[in-house]
């Protein structure tokens, strides 16, 4: 792994130096192999990226560890920024992005190709697409690969910014932060008060001194409130910290509010790559949808997703990305919605989880989300027959997620007030499995639609364990919360559950590969019943979450009041003292 990682950086750097290729350059030669014919330098570079990305995923294949992918991801991400400016369509970036989205669509959290969980084989075949569709191809292929590889990579990528800099905010992250900010404060130009921000960030389960330090770093105007850039900075620091990055002593240049703002502004334009831009655009709508928590989105997203997947082979990038974005959103929404019937109701906590785009948020967020979710009343985990989940150790999943395993994140959504983990988490194979299940279970048309997407992953699916399938299910289910989604996959349980399966699936990427058929069978058989049960459980959990959230906020208020009283009393005590002493 280390070698691979080291190799990746080397590659990435070399690539970056040449051209602003998609981030995926890092993956190594595989991409190059794949796109040997790319006449354009860009393309070739993108090839390299793709190959690098492909290779990256591969090496880590045996390591479900997130860390490795992180490094590779980081490298990849680093590349993406330079590339986005327009070089050959940043396949990788879009690919990555699409992957997460795609994964979400398919219910697979696997982020990106980078996670070489699955051997790069899928990518290889896919890369043959024409150079023009280079980027597109990469995406399709990469998605496959990434799917297999694992969502972790993507998540990691998300977590880590491009430019080899974990302190740079990626577009997906920015979208995510924007949504989170909106959940706290609809007006993007207004401030988030200190107490509000404190409650929000406390959900991340970071120790208070660290949160205090993060606040100090991000509140540059020292006004006790956070502007949007400051909020992005703080959130990003939290995300980084949750992923294991030590907190810096001073604010990195890339996180300064001025930079953050500029980044926001410039990011979209700089994203020459269509996919990226599209993503952003799509994300927003998706995000909005998420907020609405409308199930409809899910339905719509699904078709879009499937379309995307199909179009992948073409130069659909632009379409692809848009679809992907909504897809992830929808997925997130689905999760969220499932957990909380009315996303709008939940307040900040809920909003956060809902608006959190699964795909966008980095794994760290997912981790944070996971952690946040955990504190809230943990819904009864395996309520329903979780054919897949049963084998999973949900607790482990949580832990894993907490450790930064992105994979399971996507499913987390909704439960806790924290944002649901970004969808792109679980390793690809799981996603593929899920997809495979879907086809098998023939749930709804949506599922069917997804199937085509899954087809690509079918090969991976076989390998993946049923767990993955669960995770993918989670992804897919969110989409059609009311629909069959749950059918095939037992794990419709509360969002938490999804996380578990995912996380678990992530952990054992090479887990015992359950035959997809087996899984599908089990899942399919009682789909309707399970679905209903799961839905009910989800609703219950949501309600519980809502209640707990309210309770928590009330307690916080009381705590503040008590604090004030205490300070007042202390000062009062001091006053009379001089009298007595004299």
């Amino acid at each position, binding site marked *: 792994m280390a070698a691979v990682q080291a190799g990746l950086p080397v590659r990435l750097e070399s690539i970056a130096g040449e051209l602003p290729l998609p981030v995926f350059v890092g993956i190594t030669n595989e991409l190059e192999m794949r796109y040997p014919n790319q006449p354009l330098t860009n393309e070739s570079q993108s090839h390299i990226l793709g190959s690098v990305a492909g290779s990256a995923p591969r090496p880590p294949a045996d390591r479900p560890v997130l860390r490795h992918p992180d490094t590779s991801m980081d490298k990849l991400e680093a590349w993406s920024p330079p590339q986005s400016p327009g070089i050959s369509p940043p396949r990788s970036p879009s690919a990555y992005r699409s992957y997460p989205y795609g994964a979400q669509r398919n219910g697979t959290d696997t982020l990106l190709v980078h996670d070489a969980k699955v051997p790069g084989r899928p990518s290889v075949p896919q890369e043959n697409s024409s150079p023009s569709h280079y980027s597109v191809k990469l995406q399709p292929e990469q998605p496959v690969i990434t799917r297999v590889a694992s969502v972790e990579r993507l998540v990691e990528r998300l977590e880590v910014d491009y430019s080899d800099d974990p302190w740079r905010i990626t577009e997906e992250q920015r979208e995510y932060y924007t949504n989170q900010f909106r959940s706290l404060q609809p007006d993007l130009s207004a401030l988030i008060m200190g107490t509000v921000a404190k409650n929000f960030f406390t959900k991340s389960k970071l120790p208070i001194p660290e949160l205090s330090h993060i606040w100090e770093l991000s509140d540059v105007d020292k006004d*006790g409130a956070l502007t949007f850039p400051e909020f992005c900075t703080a959130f990003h620091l939290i995300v980084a910290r949750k992923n294991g990055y030590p907190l810096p002593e001073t604010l990195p240049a890339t996180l300064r509010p001025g930079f953050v703002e500029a980044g926001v502004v410039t990011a979209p334009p700089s994203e020459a790559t269509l996919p990226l831009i599209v993503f952003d655009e799509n994300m927003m709508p998706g995000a909005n949808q998420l907020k609405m928590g409308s199930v409809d989105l899910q339905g719509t997203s699904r078709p879009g997703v499937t379309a995307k997947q199909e179009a992948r082979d073409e130069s659909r990038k632009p379409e692809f990305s848009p679809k992907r974005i909504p897809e992830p959103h929808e997925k997130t929404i689905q999760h969220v919605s499932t957990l909380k019937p009315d996303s709008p109701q939940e307040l900040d906590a809920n909003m956060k989880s809902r608006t959190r785009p699964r795909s966008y948020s980095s794994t760290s967020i997912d981790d944070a989300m996971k952690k946040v979710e955990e504190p809230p009343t943990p819904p009864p985990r395996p309520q329903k027959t979780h054919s897949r989940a049963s084998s999973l150790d949900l607790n482990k999943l949580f832990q894993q997620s907490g450790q930064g395993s992105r994979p399971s994140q996507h499913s987390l959504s909704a439960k806790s007030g924290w944002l649901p983990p970004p969808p792109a988490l679980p390793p690809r194979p799981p996603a593929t499995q899920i997809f495979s299940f879907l086809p098998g279970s023939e749930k709804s048309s949506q599922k069917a639609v997804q199937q085509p997407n899954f087809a690509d992953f079918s090969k991976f699916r076989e390998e993946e364990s049923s767990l993955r399938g669960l995770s993918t299910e989670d992804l897919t289910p969110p989409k059609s919360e009311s629909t069959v989604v749950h059918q095939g996959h037992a794990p419709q349980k509360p969002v938490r559950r999804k996380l578990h399966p995912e996380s678990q699936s992530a952990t054992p990427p090479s887990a015992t590969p359950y035959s997809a058929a087996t899984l599908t069978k089990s899942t399919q058989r009682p789909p309707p019943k399970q679905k209903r049960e799961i839905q009910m459980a989800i609703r219950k959990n949501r309600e519980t979450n809502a209640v707990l959230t309210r309770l928590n906020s009330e307690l916080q208020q009381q705590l503040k009041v008590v604090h004030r009283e205490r300070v007042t009393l202390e000062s009062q005590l001091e006053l009379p003292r001089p009298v007595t002493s004299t």
Partner: protein
Amino acid sequence: MNCPLYIRSVPTQGELKFHYTVHTSLDVVEEKISGVGKALADQRELYLGLLYPTEDYKVYGYVTNSKVKFVIVVDSSNTSLRDNEIRSMFRKLHNSFTDVMCNPFYNPGDPIQSKAFDSIVSTMMVQAC
């Protein structure tokens, strides 16, 4: 009640003595602020000035509007420190303290663990010495 939120001394060997000095100086501070009838809104009133000189050192006091007291103990041999310099030091301390207070994660009454605060204090102490 009177536990120090933050205490720092440059020559760390004699730290305990400074702890004691600061604690005893609190009486003087309270005495000064109790005697003030008007509201302590004035900067000048916040700055209490030389609390009492001893053979080895001088103690300066400053109190905020929320009755948080700052005490600076300087070596008597350090004659280069003038009153306005002490005032500026207190002003910086007050600003840093306000920044710490602005942090929603900081609970009033907790020991100050802010690194920014530490760095400002260190800089100040280095300048004074």
